[in-house]
């Protein structure tokens, strides 16, 4: 039981670490998007000023402007604060899913002492011990 508990605890810790890694990746991607915005703005202002000396843009100039606009749209899509990211574990959902007995509360199967739960819960983390006191 102790080995199984420690295995579940390790799985839980690794899952939390994976979520934190995902949060770091998203932050890094958004940081890179910010750098791209700055690079596109500097490029457009520098080259645009040089290319518009006579007040006319050729086909290549308009293509550059179109690429700038499209890149801006893509970068805006990256930086837009979309809902749906979940980087934290909802404690209530976690307890209902993994810790509490499916046919009643956590105390209904454990008796008055709270020690006879050999089959449930599958996880014996600190949070599970605290909920049975």
């Amino acid at each position, binding site marked *: 039981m102790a080995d199984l508990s420690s295995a579940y605890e390790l799985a*839980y810790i690794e*899952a*939390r670490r*994976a*979520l934190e890694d*995902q949060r770091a*990746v*998203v932050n890094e*991607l*958004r940081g*890179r*998007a910010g750098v*791209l915005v700055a*690079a*596109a703005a500097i*490029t*457009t202002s520098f*080259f*645009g000023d*040089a*290319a518009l*000396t*006579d007040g006319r*843009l*050729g086909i*290549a*100039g308009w*293509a*550059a402007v179109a*690429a*700038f606009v*499209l*890149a801006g749209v*893509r*970068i805006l*899509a*990256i930086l837009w604060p*979309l809902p*749906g*990211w*979940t*980087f934290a*574990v909802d404690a209530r959902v*976690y307890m209902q899913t993994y810790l509490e007995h499916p046919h009643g509360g956590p105390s209904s199967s454990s008796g008055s002492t709270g020690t006879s739960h050999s089959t449930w819960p599958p996880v014996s983390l600190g949070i599970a011990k605290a909920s049975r006191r």
Partner: protein
Amino acid sequence: MASSFARNREGVASLIRALRAATMLLVLEIVAWVIALITQGA
């Protein structure tokens, strides 16, 4: 937890695709500006 991870993974993949496309567009923009300057000078 697993569903959150899978959902986030799809979002991260989408962000990576968008960032790659934006980078390609920036390179394309620079090339286009250089061509514009060259043709203007010629």
